[in-house]
Structure formats: C-alpha cells, structure tokens
C-alpha cells in the first residue's frame, strides 16, 4: 500500500434493496491516471456500486463513505457527482438521438448570452473536444446517424467536457466492433496519461488484462480480491468470480432421456440495429425428450436472441433450420411456435410475461386460450378449472384466480407465467432467466417444477445468468460467447471455472 491518499476512495459501502443485500461492505480506491477494472458475475453488485458513485443512489440511501482527495463526499444527486468530477457512462447510452453531437455534449450547459444559446461557440468547443480525442466526427451530425461505437465515443467526449477526473465505463465495448475497441483503448490511454482515473467494468477478461492497472473482483456484493493486474491470472479471477458451492438447493436428478425431439442447425440472427453484426452466429444444438439443456453465457452473449429468434419473435434477420421430431418446421411468429408445441417463459416477466392489470386467470390462459376455451367463445368454467388446477400444482399463493397479477410477489408472478405456458401443452419449453429476482423459496419450487416437467418427458432449454442454476439444473450445458457456442459440457464435466472460461471467451471446449 502506498502512503499517498488515494484520489478516490469508497470505504465500506453497503446497499440493500427490499429483501436483497446488493452491496455488503465493499471498499474500492482509485489513483490518478489509473485504470481500475471491476469484474464479477451478473448481479455481483458492480452496477450498484457505480450508481452510488455517480449519485444515482444519493447519500443517505447507502452505508459507508466516499472520499475524493481525502474529503468526504455526500452526493445528493447525479449533478453533485458531476460537479465533483465523476462521469459515469452506462451501458444504455444517455444521448438524445434526434439532437446533434454538439447539442448532446453541452446538453443543459449550453454556452449562452442573455439566455440565448451561442451556437458558434457551442460547436467550436465541441469540435475542439472531439479533435482533442482524435475523433473525426462532425459535431453537427445527428446522433441517430452514428453507429453505436461512435455514440460511445461521443458519450466519452461529453464526460470530458464536464472536466471529469473520474470516468466510469460500464461494459463500454459490449456494442463495439474490434476496430472501435482499438480506438477506445487509444483514447483511454491518452486519458490515463492526462491523469484521469478510470473504473472499467467488463465481462471480457482479455480486454481487462490489456487496459487495466488493477483488478477488483466482486461476488455477491462483497469484494473478494484486489490486486495489480500483472499479479492476477485469468483462472484466478474466474475462480474468485464463481467461487461458491453449487448444489444445496438443486435436487440433483439425472433425467431419463429419450429421443431427440428438437433440433436447431446453422442458426444465425442479425442485429436489427447494427448492420452486419450477428447476435447469434451459426449455432447448432438439439434437445431430447426429458432433457434439460442449459445455456450459459454472459449478458449480451446472444442467449435470449437465440430463443426469441427460434420462437419467431426477433426483429433481426434469422437464418437456419429448425426440426421438431425430425420434421423441418417453419416458424414466422409466436403463434406458429405455439402451434408447433413450443412454450417460452420469457425473461423480464413484467415486460414480456404478464398483463399486470389483469387477473391471474386471464394471464394464465392467454397463450392457450383457444385450446382451453374454444375458438371463439371464452368459457369461465373451463378457464377457471384449468387456472385453479395450475394454481394448485404450481402452488401460486393468492386469494383466488381472480386476483390481479400485478399485486403478486415476483415468485408468484413467475409461477403464473410458467402456468401460462404449461397450459399451451408444450412439447419443448424454453425458460429464459426463470428465477431472476425471486426469493430462494420460490426458486426452489420452480426448480422442483422443472425437474417434474423433465421427468414427464418435456424437453427443456434453460437460459440463466446464474451459473449455479445452470450447473445445478442441466443435464447438458452449452456456453455462448458473442453469439457463438464456445463450449459444451455434460453435467459431470461442467465446473464453474470451465464454463466461465468459455463464457468469457478465454477457452473453447467441445463435448
């Protein structure tokens, strides 16, 4: 440890959300001109920590202290943090698409005289800033005419126009191509030479090793290691990221598997927003009756895109072949997929799963309504009977099937979504993050259901960001990295370290 006061110090930071302790005594410091990488699994607490630094969670909402150059900071909002020289560039860019680059850079701080914006001044200063970063972007260009990569660089220019001394980059390369990553790194190195301290959050370990001076690993809201980058090895970091016992809540059952029922070959999906980018790149897989196939991967690896595209619900261009029981099928809409016997418990139940204003019953019967009720007329009797049976089977805790779905807890909402798809009588069931954000008791009930369904012969594809879940539930595991399959493991062969190595693109592993 040096005796110099660190430029930035976050000491003993704690943050709780209802029912979850997101951060538990995390400490982090940053020197001038240093790039400090922050790594960890999804949900480890990285983003929460940066939101505290950026003033999104203002002072009394967290525990612990933040110091800049030795003086205590208590930000009451984002503006305060900006004034202190902190700029956070989030994954979701915060640029106004219909405004020009210059307008965006100076949004809310336009140079003005008697309240009138001095446009020449604004664009001159914007040009200077961009030139300073060696960016050949015309400040008069509309943001929507720029690629994601260039938008990211504009975001950095904007941060620097605030005289940011501390720059936080949250997954800055997630949407960049290789060339753009190089440009970004050149700029980061320049900023480093200028004495800007940077916190660099990324899943991509190769980039982390290239750019950072120090690496801190977070896991379950705690710091589990900080060291100079050259003192780390990738396997060490991966071990720290995942280092926890798998099992306990997963009843280990090897499902008796039958014939292959579902097969996907040469499957690719393009990004509708970025020309030429493939979200899923030539993926092949198959699932058997009674098998749980796990798909692991980090955020943005293309897991949900793969499922959405198979289900006929992806906006991008889709190519490849889908076979059900050896027969080639065409799916151009979710209705087709449902007709073929595919069910899809989508991620983000509030956005994609439920009509929150409506009753449990209406939600449960939505996808299979015609099967349950009849083609044209609804039947309260038939629906209630089906809904009540599902409610009992899945142990949904609510007063009746007429309870409004939006008033249920997350776990019960998830069970309603699961019931909705089981009522379509599927033969293949996709589960995308089926236990995200629900409590452990409800998780275990969902795991028990998954096992029961597999036992009854259903073919299940399980996507999850939680490694223990994938490892605990799956008979076989595929690992996706940047749209490609980088690993395939049997239940026996899979270890958290091996899977994480494939998920970060460090290793390739065939079954």
């Amino acid at each position: 440890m040096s005796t110099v006061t660190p430029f930035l110090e976050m000491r003993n930071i704690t943050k709780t959300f209802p029912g979850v302790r997101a951060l538990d005594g995390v400490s982090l410091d940053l020197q001038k001109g240093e790039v400090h990488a922050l790594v960890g699994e999804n949900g480890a607490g990285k983003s929460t920590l940066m939101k505290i630094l950026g003033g999104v969670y203002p002072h009394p909402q967290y525990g612990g202290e933040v110091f800049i150059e030795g003086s205590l900071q208590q930000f009451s909002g984002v503006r305060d943090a900006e004034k202190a020289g902190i700029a956070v560039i989030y994954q979701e860019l915060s640029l106004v698409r219909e405004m020009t680059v210059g307008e965006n850079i100076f949004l809310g701080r336009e140079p003005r005289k008697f309240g009138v914006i001095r446009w020449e001044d604004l664009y001159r200063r914007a040009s200077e800033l961009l030139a300073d970063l060696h960016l050949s972007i015309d400040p008069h260009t509309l943001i929507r005419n720029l690629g994601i990569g260039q938008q990211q660089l504009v975001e950095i220019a904007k941060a620097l126009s605030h005289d940011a001394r501390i720059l936080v980059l949250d997954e800055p390369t997630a949407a960049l191509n290789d060339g753009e990553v190089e440009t970004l790194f050149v700029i980061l190195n320049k900023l480093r030479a200028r004495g800007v301290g940077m916190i660099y959050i990324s899943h991509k370990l190769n980039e982390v090793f290239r750019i950072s001076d120090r690496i801190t690993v977070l896991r379950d809201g705690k710091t589990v290691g900080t060291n100079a980058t050259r003192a780390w090895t990738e396997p060490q970091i991966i071990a720290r990221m995942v280092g926890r016992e798998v099992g306990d809540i997963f009843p280990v059952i090897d499902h008796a598997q039958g014939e292959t029922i579902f097969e996907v070959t040469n499957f690719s999906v393009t990004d509708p927003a970025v020309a030429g980018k493939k979200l899923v790149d030539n993926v092949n897989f198959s699932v058997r009756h009674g098998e749980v196939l796990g798909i692991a991967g980090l955020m943005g690896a293309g897991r949900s895109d793969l499922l959405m595209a198979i289900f006929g619900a992806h906006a991008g261009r889709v190519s490849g072949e889908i076979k059900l029981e050896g027969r080639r099928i065409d799916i151009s809409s979710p209705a087709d997929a449902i007709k073929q016997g595919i069910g899809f418990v989508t991620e983000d139940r509030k956005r994609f799963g439920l009509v929150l204003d409506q009753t449990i019953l209406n939600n449960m019967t939505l996808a299979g309504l015609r099967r349950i009720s009849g083609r044209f007329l609804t039947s309260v009797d038939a629906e209630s009977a089906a809904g009540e049976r599902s409610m009992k089977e899945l142990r949904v805790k609510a007063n009746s099937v007429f309870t409004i779905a939006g008033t249920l807890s997350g776990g019960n909402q998830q069970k309603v979504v699961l019931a909705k798809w089981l009522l379509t009588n599927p033969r293949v069931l996709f589960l995308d993050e089926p236990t995200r954000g629900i409590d452990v008791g409800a998780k275990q009930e969902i795991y028990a259901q998954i096992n029961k369904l597999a036992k009854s012969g259903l073919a299940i594809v399980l996507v999850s960001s939680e490694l223990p879940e994938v490892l605990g539930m799956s008979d076989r595991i595929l690992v996706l990295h940047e749209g490609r399959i980088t690993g395939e493991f049997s239940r026996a062969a899979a270890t958290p370290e091996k899977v994480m190595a494939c998920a970060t693109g460090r290793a390739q592993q065939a079954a």
Partner: protein
Amino acid sequence: MLMNNAAATISEPEPLPDADETTPVTSIGKFKIPTEVLRAYTMVFALVAIWIYFHFSTDRIFLDPRNFSNLMRQTSVTGVLAVGMLMVIITAQIDLSVGSVVGLAGGIAAIAQGWYGYGLIPSLTAGVAVAIAIGALQGSLTAYLNIPAFIVTLGGLLAWRGVILGLSKGETIPLRLQSFKAIGQNYVDRRAGWILAGLAIAAVVWMMIARNRARRRHGLAVPSLGSTVFRIALPTAVILWFIYTMNTYEGVPIPVIILIAIALAGAFLTQNTTFGRYLYAIGGNPDAARLSGINIRKHILAVFCIMGALAGVASIIYTARVGSASPDAGQLLELDAIAACVIGGTSLMGGRGTVFGAILGALIMASLDNGMSLMRVEPYSQMIIKGAILVAAVGLDMAGRKRG
C-alpha cells in the same frame, strides 16, 4: 442472491397477500368497497344526480316521458360510436375520423336513395359498406404500415369530410324514403316494448342464477338470498320503469333499440370471446400479447373495421333522425365518443374499460347537452361546462386511482 444461505431461508414462505392487497379497496367511513365496483357505482350516482338536478332545474321537464324519450334518442348516436371507440381505445389506439365518417356514410346512403333511386336496403348497405372500407383502410395503415392511428385518423377527419363536401357539392340531401326516416324517428309498438321488458327480466334472472351456480362451483362466496333478490329486483325495476316511461310517450324509439342491441353485442364481444380477451391483452401489454401468440396487427385491423361498421350504423340513425344528410353532419362526434369512453372509466393507455362504462359516459354527455339546452344555457357556456366536466371527471378518476 446468496445461494449458500439457501438452506437457511428456504423454509421461509412468501408472505400470503391479504385481501386488501389483492383487490384494491376504497374506504368510505367504515365501509370498504372494492374500487372497481365503486367506480361503476360512482358513475351511476353521478348520472342520477345530474338527472335529478336537471329535473328540478327545468320545472320537471327533464325526466318527463317526452323529454326522456328524446334524451335516449340523442344518446343513441354517441352511444353506438362509443361502443366502437371503446374497442379501439382498449387496444391503445384512437379514431379521430368517426365524425367525418358519419357525415360521409350518411351522405352516401342519402345520395344512393335520393339521386340514384336505390331502395332502403341497398342505400343503407352502400353507406355502411363505405364506412367499413374506410375502417379497413385506416386500420391497415395503422397496423401494417405502422403509421400512428392518431395521424391516420386525423388525416381521415379532414379527408372524409372533404369527400362528402365534394360528392354532395355542398348541398343538403333530403331523405325521400319514409322507411329510412322511420329508423330515426319511429317507435316500437308498445306491446313489443313490454315483451322486450319481459325478455330482459328473464335474462337478468337467468344470469344471476347462472352466476351464483358458477361461483358455487368454483368455491367462491355465493351472495346471500337477500342480496340475490336485490340484484334481480333492482335491474327489474329499472327495466320496468324504463319501458313504462317510454310507453307513456310513444314507445321505445327505434334508435334506442339499435343502441341496446349494439351495446349488448359489444359487451358480449369484449367480455365473452377470445377476440375481446385479446383486445385487452394487446392494450394492457403488447409485448406479452405478441409473445403469447396473438396477432396484434390482425386484431387492430379488425377493431378499426368494427369501428367503421358502427360509424356506418350511427350515420344511418343520425341521417334518419334529422331527415336529411348535410355535408357537415356529425362534426365533433368523434370527441363525444372519446369523451364518453373516458368518462366511463376507459384508459387512453389501453387495456382498461367496459361497454357499460362507455354507454354510461354517452348518457352523461347527452344528458348534459339536453339538460343545459332545456335550461337555456347559452351554447358557449355549454361548451365550457362540458369541457370542464370532462377534465374534472378524469382528474377525479386519476386521483382515486393514485390512492388505490
């Protein structure tokens, strides 16, 4: 999530939501009433209060059989449009063109019988067909070309008015066919009125019994005998009073019969069919609806076609009632229809609203028009008052919702 602690927390059950949490409840003194029920009753009370106020402010003319019959007839055009508008708004769309479509379709029907000597049925068919075609066009542009319905139908508001001005050369076309006028001006025979009342009461009794049986089958609390009797007696009394009042004058006006038929059909379509269920799902959460296999575009197109058909029906009633088709007929009707839906508790965000509410809203709007005219309120004041009431009604509703 801390997996290692799983064993420790597993036995902890999720809290069972209590009754107050599952059904939004509003407290009035010591009474707790489910908010949705309260909203429906509030509208009924508001309507009754408005009626009583006008009745006594107009020297008891307002609820006099003759005026009441008139009021009901006035409600019918807005009511028919409100049923269609309700379905459009449930899917989170809007149709601003219905006033102009009423003008155009009515004009076409009048031209068909007046200039080309068509009979009754061909003339009506021509008018309604044009209205449906317009609905199909606007629905296609909205659903398949992704042009916002607000813009498509704002364009329609201008364009269809232009078409009828052009076709009619600005002239008012009188109705030649007596049978056409009869649709808007005649009454159902008194005996037929009583037969309808009998059928309606039988339906109420049957529905109550069926509902209680269903509740018993699903293990839900069955209302007590007293409550059941009350739930049968109240609608029965209303039906009898309604038919009695109508028959005291000339009988039930034909437009009112048309409105009742369309309202019942609309209520059935929205509440008892897969189609209706899908409309609510599309408005409530389009992403969830799409992923549940619902063809959103097809349903939006269908809803605009239904709106077109109902605008056609409304145009016939309107033209028949007036006895002629003037090129500026139906102006601002779209706003009346939207206001009726909104006063009736429909959410412009989609996914929420009932035919019953929309009809109540139409009745409230028509009552305000009729009552204020009887009170000889200046037209400009009428507009100001109606505008203020619309905003206040929604304001109260939002305030109530926030509390709930």
